[in-house]
């Protein structure tokens, strides 16, 4: 996807990164493998 939103979220000192796409096509590896 052309647009992917990247956001870091921290809870109890553990920071994780989320990436969100507006469309699934081309974003999910597991779908592409099917």
């Amino acid at each position, binding site marked *: 996807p052309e647009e992917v939103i990247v956001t870091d979220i921290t809870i109890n000192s*553990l920071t994780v990164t*989320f990436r969100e796409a507006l469309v699934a096509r081309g974003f999910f590896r*597991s779908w592409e493998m099917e």
Partner: protein
Amino acid sequence: SEIELIFCPHPLLVSSQQYSQTRYVKTTAKATVDHLSKYLALRVALEEGSSGTPEGALRHVSEKQFTIYISTAAGQFTTLNGSLTLELVNQKFWKLCKPLELFYAPT
């Protein structure tokens, strides 16, 4: 070490006018359900423009604003404990080689 998930409004607890967006998300497997809930609260706050800047929104959002569910059978939804990692949710409830499907509703 990465989890792919499709994140949808709960079909029974959320009206179609309230949150209609399906979200396509990737994150690390060590993220917890609480991380996901707080992420959603932040995204919604930013999209609604109610909290101004991302920094302002981060100060006001909480992992308690949304409850996360997984569908375990036709029409059955299980509430996920906030301390569960998404890796554990994947192993315990999903077990499929396709993106994890989760549902959300305001708490």
